[in-house]
């Protein structure tokens, strides 16, 4: 009986929510193939068997080690995958998840598909963006195990009524190790994981005008800040906020682009967003061709009005 193995990522002892989306994706495969879903935390962390069971896991394993080593985590996953005859290994396509995906495939002598946005559980194929999102490819992995990482916001926890059992397993030793983790984004979610994003471009005029974007973000729960490369290159915002082909790829439910022209490299990073709002003073800006809703106007005037209107809603 084959199993689907999901790698659970944690930070500071708590589970990252992107991992629950991967558990939900594993459940989709399990429902078709009749396999069981095993979820493996590669480090000791706080695990809620009820939450994981509801997300889709049948059995939860936790490796007994503190601190993160990519080699150690990959080796633990590969060993558990073999012990449990896993036919599929799924990860969240976070920085750590992308790091582990290729390693796990190498250890299991198989292929991998990174950053997948869809899967077909019956055909066991994965669909993923390539060329910075300008095209999509559907792939099948030729090998004993299919290893894939899943992009945030494309899959969801199963939401079933079930519990999972938690068991401890031995952790493998690693070579490199994480010696420090410093939180950055001032309480806001990371732009790659948020379900709502407001991004500013060169049209914002100056770094000092970011308070206008922040006011809108503050009025929308869970809203992250993003930026175009022009803004990052000007030193107005950190690279961690850059959206696009050489920044982060995002697919939130709502993406608001203020003073962004819509260059092909920026679009590549956000055109999978469900709803796109463009605010630009140039009615011919390319971003309007991709926007769900557009407002032609000066972002410095539109944004305060938007913040005020949203505050009224008390979201």
């Amino acid at each position, binding site marked *: 009986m084959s199993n689907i193995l999901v790698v659970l990522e944690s930070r500071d002892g708590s589970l990252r929510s992107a991992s629950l989306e991967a558990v939900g994706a594993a459940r989709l495969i399990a429902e078709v193939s009749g396999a069981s879903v095993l979820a493996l935390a590669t480090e000791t962390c706080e695990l809620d068997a009820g939450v994981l069971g509801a997300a889709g896991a049948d059995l939860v394993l936790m490796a007994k080690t503190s601190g993160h080593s990519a080699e150690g985590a990959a080796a633990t996953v590969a060993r558990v995958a073999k012990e449990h005859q896993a036919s599929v290994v799924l990860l969240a396509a976070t920085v750590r998840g992308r790091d582990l995906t290729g*390693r796990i495939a190498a250890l299991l002598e198989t292929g991998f598909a990174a950053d997948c946005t869809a899967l077909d559980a019956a055909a066991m194929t994965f669909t993923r963006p390539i060329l910075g999102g300008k095209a999509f*490819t559907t792939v099948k*992995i030729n090998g004993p195990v299919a290893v894939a990482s899943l992009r945030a916001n494309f899959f969801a926890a199963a939401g079933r009524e079930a519990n999972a059992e938690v068991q401890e397993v031995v952790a493998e030793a690693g*070579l490199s190790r994480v010696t420090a983790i410093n939180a*950055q984004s001032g309480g806001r979610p990371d732009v790659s994981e948020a379900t709502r994003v407001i991004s500013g471009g060169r049209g914002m005029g100056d770094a000092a005008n970011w308070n206008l974007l922040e006011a809108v973000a503050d009025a929308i729960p869970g809203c992250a800040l993003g930026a175009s490369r022009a803004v990052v290159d000007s030193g107005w915002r950190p*690279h961690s906020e850059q959206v696009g082909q*050489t920044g982060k790829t995002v697919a939130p439910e*709502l993406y608001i682009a203020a003073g962004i022209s819509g260059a092909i490299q920026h679009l590549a990073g956000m055109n999978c967003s469900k709803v796109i709002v463009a605010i630009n003073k140039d009615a011919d800006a390319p971003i309007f061709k991709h926007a769900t809703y557009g407002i032609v106007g000066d972002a410095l005037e539109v944004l305060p009005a938007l913040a005020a209107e949203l505050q009224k809603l008390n979201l």
Partner: protein
Amino acid sequence: MNIITFVKRVPSTTANVVITENQLNPEGVEFVLNPYDEYAVEEALAIKEAAGEGSVTAISLGAGEAQKELRTVLAMGADAAVLLASPLAPAADGATTARALAAAVKGREFDLLLFGKQAVDRDQHGVGPAVATLLGVPCITEVVKLSVADGKVIAEREVEGARETIEASLPCAITCQKGLNTPRFASLRGIMAAKKKPMEVIDVDLGTAAVEVVAMNMPPARPAGRILGEGAAAVPELVAALRNESKVL
């Protein structure tokens, strides 16, 4: 300090993408050195210069045309280049690519392996860590700050909402992220010197691909949107549409 850096010839990010028969149609597409590999090459050269000794070798898995990008790397300052030549290389998946690169590294002496964090064509993010795994050396990915001293590597990378510090011993692999450095341009003298530098071409057989492409398509077209109006006056309609029509608020 012996450094091997891995580079790929990729379509420019400004390229207009047309897919024919499950492949990128190369017609009219400009090909360039993968932008993330530029950071890897720069870092390799800077580390060698700081050490005052050693060598930088660039390896590429590519079709014959990839010699152009390898010449660029030689012109930037690398000492030697190796092309692992296969007509199937441009479309090779991450695992297949990693196997070929790891096989080429075996038997070569190295302290550091430097990769771009991803190639901007297949966007797999996995070749560097997979090569390191096959060779049994540590790997630190998406590095934005790096120091190498006394056989030890201290690196920083940005993860979602945080910055991690990671330590490892040499020999070690690193994948490079934007922010690590500012890649140099090849000087005229570098371009002249590159013509005389060694470029080894080794034919490789990639075997059965680890990942099979079933389909390749353009992204689904977005439903047409609409301009709601001009200036702040359009804001109430926007908020109403987000709330009642798209239901995202």
